[in-house]
């Protein structure tokens, strides 16, 4: 075997070429890590939003989209009194009537923004136990709760959605009473308003949905209830299934992210392959000499792979450092919410695998070309 120092010294024989390889592989790895972080973040936020213990009662035929759904306001009360086995912390049954409403939100000095407003009652805190008030107090009429990432989703300065801030929904002045957190869910990008206030803004009598948190009851019990009460025209959907379907809806966007990253990365990969080919091709005689003094082709190939791996893994290290410094913790937005980008173990592993694959696959064909010629021919080249 050739010593590791031989591979290392060879790398520094041409610093420009080394810089090209390290820079190229860093770019490819960073692109893959970004794509992975974006797509996994999108999937994670939708996955975390839907709890398998929560069931949505939606209007029949509107199972795909809660904004489109309309159910009778009496459905919440009927479900609460008719169903057994609903979770009841503090003797309050976790049945939350809600209106999901898309409307314009206006803040002085900024163009109006499209906002997702959820009309809730205090019972919403029973169905979403992860929701916590970070600052301020529970809202009264004319007040709203702002998710801690709503400012990012609405593209507004953060301080404009803090307790005490004033804005207009549907032309009506409201003030922010509190900021809430619902870690890792799309709710953090929403505005929550009093259900009755939202009924007035939206000029609607119907609800969008009723959310139930299961205690001893099974989903089938709720499903059976909707099938027995045909007059209510309800459909029961597990919240996790609802958001699972939403994640499917956004699958083409995730695919586009991967394809785009792959297309840009392919330029760097093919450029890197060209560079490695040129680097190894100019060393055919050197490799032949080493063979002549007794080193096997396998040992030489191993050394060339080592050389390429060191360069590509250095690029991976560079990309990982960049990702931790500039990607981790940033918020990204998509259609229904914002999420925090994470350099999770999965993302880091994707980077490491990309870097290693680049190092291996980039070196092997070039090494094959370099070591394939018969010894006398290679020595004369």
């Amino acid at each position, binding site marked *: 075997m050739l010593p590791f120092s031989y591979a290392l010294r060879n790398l520094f024989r041409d610093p420009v070429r080394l810089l*090209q390889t390290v820079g190229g592989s860093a770019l490819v790895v960073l692109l893959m890590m970004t794509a992975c972080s974006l797509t996994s973040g999108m999937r994670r936020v939708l996955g975390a939003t839907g709890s398998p213990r929560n069931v949505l009662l939606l*209007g*029949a*035929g*509107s*199972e*795909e*989209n809660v*904004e*489109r759904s*309309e159910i009778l306001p009496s459905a919440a009360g009927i479900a609460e009194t008719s169903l057994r086995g609903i979770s009841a912390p503090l003797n309050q049954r976790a049945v939350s009537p809600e209106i999901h*409403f*898309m*409307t*314009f939100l206006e803040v002085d000095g900024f163009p109006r923004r*499209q906002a997702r407003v959820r009309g809730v009652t205090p019972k919403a805190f029973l169905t979403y136990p992860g929701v916590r008030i970070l600052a301020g107090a529970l809202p009264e009429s004319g007040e709203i709760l702002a998710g801690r990432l709503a400012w990012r989703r609405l593209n507004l300065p953060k301080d404009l959605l803090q307790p005490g801030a004033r804005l207009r929904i*549907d*032309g009506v002045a409201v003030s922010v009473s509190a900021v809430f957190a619902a870690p890792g869910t799309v709710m953090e990008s929403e505005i929550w308003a009093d259900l009755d206030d939202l009924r007035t803004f*939206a*000029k609607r009598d119907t609800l969008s949905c009723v959310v139930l948190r299961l205690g001893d009851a099974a989903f089938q019990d709720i499903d059976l209830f909707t099938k027995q009460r045909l007059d209510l*025209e309800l459909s029961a959907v597990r919240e996790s299934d609802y958001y699972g379907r*939403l994640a499917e*809806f*956004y699958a*083409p*966007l995730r695919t*586009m992210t991967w394809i*785009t990253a792959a*297309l*840009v990365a*392919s*330029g*760097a*990969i*093919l*450029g890197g*392959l*060209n*560079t490695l*080919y*040129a680097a190894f*091709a*100019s060393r055919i005689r050197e490799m032949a000499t080493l063979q002549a003094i007794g080193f096997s082709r396998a040992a030489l190939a191993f050394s060339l792979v080592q050389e390429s791996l060191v360069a590509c893994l250095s690029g991976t290290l560079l990309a990982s450092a960049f990702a931790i410094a500039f990607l981790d913790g940033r918020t990204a937005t998509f*259609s*229904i919410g914002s999420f925090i980008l994470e350099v999770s173990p999965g993302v880091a592993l994707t980077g490491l695998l990309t870097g290693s694959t680049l190092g291996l696959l980039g070196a092997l064909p070039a090494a094959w070309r370099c070591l394939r010629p018969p010894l006398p021919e290679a020595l004369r080249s």
Partner: protein
Amino acid sequence: MIRSLPRLAALAGKQLLRHPLRTGFSAAGIAAGMFLFTSVETLQRSLRRATEVAAADTTLVVYRENRFCPATSRLPEHYAESIRRIEGVREVIPIKVQVNNCGASLDVVTFRGVPPGDLFRYGPEIKIVKGSLEEWERIDDGALLGSQFAARRGLEPGDRFDAAGITVQVCGVIQSPFPQDASVAYVKLPFLQQASRTGLGVVTQFNVRVESAALVEPVADRIDEEFRSASEPTATRPEKAFFAETAGELIEIVAFSRWLGLGAVLAVAGLVGNALLLIVRSRVREHALLRTLGYPDKAIGFLVLSEGALLGALGGIAGVGLAILLLNLKSFTFSNEGQSLAIRADPAVLLTGLAAALALSLLASLWPAWRALRSPIVENLRR
């Protein structure tokens, strides 16, 4: 010198063929970059077509004031009669819009419910290219599909499909000059009102065609004035301005794609530059020999530039061609809030893509060509 240019270009071609692997890698990388560039450019041009108001535009959209989502814009259908009476209005059509999801994504299904007799009166330019109008008028759950939507889903007259909680039978496929028509399914208004449970008499919007472009603004003002004190006030805008405000998320995504286009351009330039630097480096002795034989510096420079241009042309044709083929075959549609953006590549995209590939390759070849000229002959001959 000028007479020898074709021969030098042919020599550049031969040089590329002598290194098929390197040429293949470089051309493939350029093709990938130009594929992305063309896709982004198509997206941008499609958006410009959908949002840039032209002087001849005469269509207005009447929507519920302060609303942008089809699920929340609810206007009484009887507003149509009042709008029709306004001076300058040529035709008005009430539309109920139903989508499977309001978010911005591909493959969104948009139903538009219209009074059966009004569709062709409002848009006499709409033509049925497959199926029959009689069949659509005869059955309650019939649908006329925009050509792009039918192609995307592979639907033909006689097929049934369901989306957004509604099941319909395809009666025909339409071709329309209105961009929004390409990706929708037209159904009868009463059918959609009942199927969507909003109830009879409620619609999402009115599309209004005015007599002349000069009347667009005055008529929009008159309509909003008419319903200012009504229970459901309206906001009336030209169709393209309405699209620009409503499909905000979609526009954000398309705007972001500009950075991807820039990334693609940089990747192509970097790749060509890298490939040519390697070529120049591996051909130091050969170039020195040519210069010794009397070839002027310009000829050597032209040789390097030709190789760059040929690589650019090769990768450009492959990348741009593939992108246009895919975009036109797959009939992609980007939708948001019931507004659809049909992504169609036009001949201008083809020309822009090819010109960009060539220009980028030539630009990226300048430095390697300069390096080839500046290297000392004697030293290079000894290598």
